[in-house]
């Protein structure tokens, strides 16, 4: 695809656990362009965070399978050695704001020094680092004199901005945000989403936003990926997705969002997501799906419907492509 920044193909990440193999990321593929924001939506435990960690190769020790292809700017990342990956990719080209980052700031280091640290570590620039940190503080809307404060002297919203500043300080092409606003208040959340939108516009940064909050995700999304039980079941552009999602799971998920500004009775999905230890054969959503039929016992392929719409469901047969 033109102007492509990141392409992921057939990514697998399985973990060993006491009761078997957890198939957290199971054959995931997507691509995204420059200055695009991709939102990965799904319920808790569907493998969203594992997907982020697989892309950044931040893996725990109990990995069983880790395979697939990750292309960034035409370079295949899975082939790089650990040291090369650390030097050339992590935090240089792709950075991440992990979940609950605002509570993981070092309590005994001034936040300005913490934000400057990636620059020192990756480029060895001590003097410029603080200047860059100052610049990035302004970008995310933290007063510059907060640089000499400690994390506990800041409010939750300010700490989250500091965590975002840290991911932006090396001017990466892609920033992965894992639930960046889920612990924050409504007004603070709206403020931070405004900041992210501004950064995306002014600095042409690309974002992968991982969240379960569908309403808030629409504030940033250009493109939406719906994950269910370790797999992506739908990829769609936001203007297509929010009015008319394709996959039955996406439809149900969107129906379950309570609306504030219009009256619409929300629905819910009965049953619960399958265990990733032994996911069901065939379509993984079939046991909860209102429109399942005989074919759903086999695993559906990802069908390309054109206009960058892809869906993993038998309801969209190949001849409609």
């Amino acid at each position, binding site marked *: 695809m033109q102007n492509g920044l990141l392409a992921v193909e057939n990514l697998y990440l399985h973990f060993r656990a006491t009761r078997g193999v957890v198939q957290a990321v199971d054959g995931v593929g997507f691509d995204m362009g420059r200055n695009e*924001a991709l939102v990965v939506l799904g*319920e*808790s435990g569907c493998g969203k965070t594992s997907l982020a960690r697989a892309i950044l190769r931040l893996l725990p020790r109990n990995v069983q399978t880790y395979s697939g292809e990750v292309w960034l700017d035409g370079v295949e990342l899975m082939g790089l050695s650990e040291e090369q990956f650390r030097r050339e990719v992590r935090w240089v080209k792709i950075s991440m704001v992990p979940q609950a980052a605002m509570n993981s700031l070092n309590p005994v280091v001034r936040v300005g020094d913490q934000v400057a640290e990636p620059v020192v570590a990756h480029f060895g620039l001590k003097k410029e680092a603080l200047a860059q940190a100052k610049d990035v503080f302004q970008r995310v809307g933290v007063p510059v004199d907060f640089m000499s404060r400690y994390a506990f002297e800041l*409010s939750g*919203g*300010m700490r989250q901005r500091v965590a975002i500043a840290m991911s932006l300080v090396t001017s990466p092409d892609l920033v992965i945000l894992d639930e960046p606003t889920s612990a924050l*208040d*409504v*007004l*603070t*959340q*709206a*403020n931070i*989403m*405004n900041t992210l*939108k*501004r950064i995306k516009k002014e600095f042409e940064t690309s974002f992968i936003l991982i969240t*379960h*909050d*569908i*309403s*808030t*995700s*629409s*504030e*940033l*999304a*250009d493109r939406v990926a719906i994950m269910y039980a370790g797999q992506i079941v739908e990829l769609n552009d*936001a*203007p297509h*997705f*929010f*009015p008319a999602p394709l996959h039955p799971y996406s439809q*149900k*998920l*969107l129906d*379950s*969002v*309570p*609306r*504030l*500004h*219009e*009256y619409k*009775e*929300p*629905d*819910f*999905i*009965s049953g*619960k997501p399958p265990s990733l230890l032994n996911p069901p054969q065939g379509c993984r959503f079939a046991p909860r799906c209102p429109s399942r039929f005989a074919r759903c016992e086999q695993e559906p392929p990802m069908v390309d419907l054109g206009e960058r719409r892809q869906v993993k469901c038998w309801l969209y047969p190949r001849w409609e492509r």
Partner: protein
Amino acid sequence: MNMDRNVAAKDGTLLAVQNLHTWFELRKWGFGRAGFVRAVDGVDFELPYGEALAFVGESGCGKSTLAKTILGLYRPTKGDVIFEGRKLNEFQGREMQWYRSQVGYVQQDPYGALPPFMSVHRILEEPLIINGMKSKADREQRIVEVLEEVRMTPVEDFLSKFPHMLSGGQQQRVVVARSMILRPKLIVADEPVSMLDASVRVEILRLLRDLQDSHNLAVSYITHDLSTVRYFSKRIFVMYAAKIIEKAPVDELLGQPLHPYTQALLTAIPDPDAENAVTFKEVPPGEPPSLINPPAGCRFHPRCPKIIKDLCDRQEPPEFEPQPKHFVGCWLYR
């Protein structure tokens, strides 16, 4: 239970809260006084039998403290909680136990609220034993009944399970079942769905609503999420910095919010729509004030876009009623 000091409640009011203050003392060096955190600072309202009421506010605005004061878990510093015409402060011993059987509590985090070493059966049986249901057969019957009410069927499949064997939604059903088992008149639900996934959330809210209808329960529903309120309650109270700043019926509050803070909340909460990505939201800057030294005058004035100089920053606004049954604490409506 037999009551000797039962004063008849006036016109169907189940719970009345009058001028309630709950302050927490801050200490210096372990004993010196260093001030107070004014978590609830002058709250008044009445809750009739069978009505669902929602408290909406951001974290740290005192809504959970209010819930716990109503439940009798915190002692109010000043003011009264009056249940069926009787003051909570004056309850002693057995009366407090009776009160606790009349008021159910649905906690925020179902996993944290359920003891991990007790089976569903034991969790539900304990309150019955404590409240003197002697016959085992009666207890079994009530447990089955309440589990059917929260739609955990077939009941036999769940009785012997431990909390960690249940999904988040099922755990929250057990918490609801436990709060219902003594047939209370009031349920206090403190963020009952905020820890659950979107697809389960609506299911639990609908369950609470059905229970409220069928048992004529009064519910005080505490949440930070305005968008879930519409499907649940009749009236909304908006809290900001330990005070209730706006009280109104749901449709009025959502359709025509009066307080600048409520207006900001409503603009800030998005509905899923791709349009959101291309527009910026008008959001007041800053953060809610500290409850140790709240600002003088209206507590929202430092962030308010419609501030009236020399009034809002000096005098605290009283409660105005610009429209019938719509109360607002804001000088704009004087």
